[in-house]
């Protein structure tokens, strides 16, 4: 049962129609192959660009489609329903483009944003380091003044599509310890000294490459510093507020895919002379799965509407990320359970969905960190 489209406007419905067609014909049929070969689906990213959906929530004057963030999230949910790693890639790309749109100079918008929105370039986001994950403000990659620009030295971990992306939003330290000493840079692929050192072997998202990056005397001109010195952490967090909604939408798309697969399986599979789904015990599990998904969908869409209305939405973004990805974990786990032994073998997709859901609870702030954000907002601490 696909997501309810009844209350969408015409533009949104045609956009979802376009994305569904692409998912049915291209993304879903190819997902298994790319995942099992651990191959980045570069041709599918090119098609996303051709479809004109690499810059949905950005201004038309910079090559975007001038649509709301809510509309963009519909696309993410649809993609995640078909192929999670691809949706993650678009979400990370949008994280980078968001920062350029929000904090970039006119020249940066012309040179970088316009390439990102049209999909000529894809973007990545690099905050995490070996010594700083949840405590991201403790990062130690250095950016020192040199030759009228900056020289970057250090190492990053866990950068999604870090070596595939054409430009990486890179956070590095230009000042003292703490959040205020961090500056953001737009680092282009193939800049000398900037390398993908190691591609991680992962539990899931296997066709979404996760890189350790090394920076050895990487020269970055002033023109590629994003925002003033010292506001890099603010930029990183603002991007994450937006990005969390993308991860929430990924969780709902993935959970919906798991539910759909489970409904198909349990109505078809017969035991004791009747379909498995005819048992009340099974129906109650299906009911909880469907209800969690729908509640999560309302939660992230509500947060997105606050964002579109220019309201503060970081509390709701944290709640949506937490709730939707926990729903995804629960629903995919139950999906495996309701498939019985068939859920545990790779011939059926649900074991993959379960592995994929785990990643969503960890990235862009672990779900512990989301609770920490929510708690702080509630108590003013």
């Amino acid at each position, binding site marked *: 049962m696909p997501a309810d489209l009844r209350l969408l406007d015409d*533009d949104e419905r*045609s*956009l979802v129609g*376009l994305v569904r*067609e*692409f998912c049915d014909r291209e993304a879903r049929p190819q997902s298994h192959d790319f995942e099992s070969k651990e191959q980045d689906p570069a041709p599918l990213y090119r*098609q996303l660009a*051709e*479809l*004109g*959906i690499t810059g*949905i929530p950005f201004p038309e004057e910079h090559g975007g*489609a001038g649509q709301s963030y809510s509309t963009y999230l519909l696309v993410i949910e649809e993609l995640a329903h078909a192929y999670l790693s691809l949706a993650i890639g678009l979400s990370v790309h949008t994280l980078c483009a968001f920062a350029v749109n929000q904090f970039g100079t006119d020249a940066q918008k012309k040179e970088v944003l316009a390439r990102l929105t049209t999909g000529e370039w894809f973007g990545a986001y690099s905050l995490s380091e070996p010594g700083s994950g949840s405590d991201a403000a403790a990062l130690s990659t250095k950016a020192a003044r040199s030759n009228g620009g900056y020289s970057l030295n250090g190492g990053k971990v866990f950068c999604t599509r870090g070596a595939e992306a054409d430009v990486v939003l890179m956070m590095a330290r230009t000042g003292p310890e703490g959040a205020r000493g961090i500056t953001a840079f737009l680092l282009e692929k193939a800049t000398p000294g900037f390398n993908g050192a190691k591609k991680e072997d992962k539990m899931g998202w296997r066709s979404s490459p996760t890189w350790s990056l090394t920076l050895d005397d990487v020269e970055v001109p002033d023109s590629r510093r994003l925002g003033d010195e010292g506001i890099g952490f603010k930029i990183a967090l603002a991007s994450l507020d937006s990005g969390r909604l993308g991860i929430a939408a990924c969780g709902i798309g993935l959970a919906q895919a798991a539910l759909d697969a489970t409904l198909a399986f349990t109505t078809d599979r017969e035991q004791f002379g009747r379909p498995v789904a005819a048992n009340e015990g099974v129906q109650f599990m299906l009911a909880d799965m469907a209800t969690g998904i729908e509640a999560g969908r309302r939660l992230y869409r509500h947060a997105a509407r606050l964002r579109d209305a220019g309201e503060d939405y970081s509390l709701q973004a944290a709640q949506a990320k937490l709730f939707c990805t926990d729903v995804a974990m629960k629903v995919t786990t139950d999906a495996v359970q309701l498939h019985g032994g068939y859920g545990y073998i790779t011939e059926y997709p649900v074991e993959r969905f379960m592995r994929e859901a785990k990643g969503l609870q960890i990235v862009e702030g672990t779900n512990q960190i989301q609770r920490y954000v929510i708690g702080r907002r509630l108590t003013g601490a």
Partner: protein
Amino acid sequence: MNIVVCVKHIPDPNIPGELEGGRLKRSGVQGVLDPGDEFGVETGLQLKEAHGGEVTLVSMGPPTAMEAIRRGLSMGADKGLLVSDDALQGACALVTARVLAAAIKKSGPFDLVIAGVESTDGYTGTMPSTLAELLDVPQVTFVKRLDSADGTIRADRQTAEGYQVVESPLPALITVTAGVNSPRYASFKGIMAAKKKPVDNLSIGDLGLSSEEVTSMQQIASVGSAEARKAGEVIEDDGTGAQRVAEFLKEAKVI
């Protein structure tokens, strides 16, 4: 180059069709641009990209057929023309050709008319040839590859044995096969832009056709299911299996 592409809105071929009074049920059924016509639209767009000009989509059908035109417009066609009239319900291939010919003449001078080889719902395959006659232009059917230069077209025409290379002056009509190209997806911007593209809505009165001209000559006597495919012959290998398969193939004149 002014190109006209004939497009048809048909019940989604991925959903099993239902009959209604001896005809395919159309109302209340999810419709799509005939997948075969996507190749025609793509051919038109490629010619326009190479030679300039305009691509006009022409369709006959109920008001919902506008969806098929919008789809083609969002792929990149420039304008559309839909002939819609209650009197045309259940029109046969000849009436359809008359209506489309009148609509194409009304839309202005053209260099090339493109249609699919046959529709994915009716499969008569006679409409395009009739249309070429009514427009009084040469026709090249079963085109699987197409070049155009200096007022002529050169086409590879699919045959049972291989293909013929055919040249024709313009204006002309061609029908394209499913192998001729790979139709592009509509883009999101294309969908948005399509809403602002001009589409004419015409009735038979607007085309100056008389009621005799639009009366179907064809009667559907009966409709039946195709004979179910018979189960194949299973050869169990008792040591002579290979030989028996070879004999079977020889009998079928395959080897």
